[in-house]
């Protein structure tokens, strides 16, 4: 089972984890909107995706799924307006043994961070905002 999803709907980590359940070791990463960044208080944020984002995420998922140890995986990224505590990214990797699950899940999250054409605008408590990484 391989799932990749770019969606403005609320992400459900438990459902994604369950989609990878038939295996020995399942490692799940959940990234939630933090209430601070670089010492500033974050109020809300907005993710916007390039039209190619679903394809890129699917390629990342397919590359991970092609690894010998990987039995199932799911990766999903939220878009649109999020508030503190909302789930932005979920990545799940199932393998027979635990070390591979940790390693592949961490690697897939890194790939999403670096390769997925997705942008994040943070709105701070003082009303100012910034596109993360762009200034």
């Amino acid at each position, binding site marked *: 089972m391989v799932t990749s999803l770019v969606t403005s709907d609320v992400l459900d980590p438990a459902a994604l984890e369950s989609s990878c359940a038939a295996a020995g070791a399942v490692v799940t990463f959940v*990234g939630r909107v933090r209430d601070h960044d670089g010492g500033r208080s974050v109020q809300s944020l907005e*993710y*916007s995706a*390039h039209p*190619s984002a679903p394809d890129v995420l699917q390629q990342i998922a397919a590359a991970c799924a092609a690894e010998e140890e990987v039995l199932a995986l799911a990766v999903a*990224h939220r878009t649109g307006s999020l508030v503190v505590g909302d789930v*932005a*990214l979920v990545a799940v990797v199932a393998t027979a043994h635990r070390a591979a699950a940790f390693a592949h899940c961490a690697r897939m*999250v890194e790939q*999403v*961070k*670096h*390769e*997925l*054409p*997705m*942008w*994040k*605008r943070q709105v701070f408590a003082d009303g100012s905002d910034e*596109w*993360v*990484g*762009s*200034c």
Partner: protein
Amino acid sequence: MTTDVTVRLFAAAAAAAGTTELVLPATSLLDLRGSLAPSVGAVLDRCSFLVDGLVAHGDVPLRAGATVDVLPPFAGG
């Protein structure tokens, strides 16, 4: 003969330019970057570019009617 290309701007690049799409004359990516610099500003130097959906490394010629995407640094997750 027109040399116009369609430029799609995203995220910080769109915010800086105040628009998500422009049509500009350009025959190369370097040429286009020169035209964009005044409106897009500092973030342009941190952007990567897609020409007709493919990543452009360095300068490349642009065909008339090409679509160029201007991508600020990704910040997913």
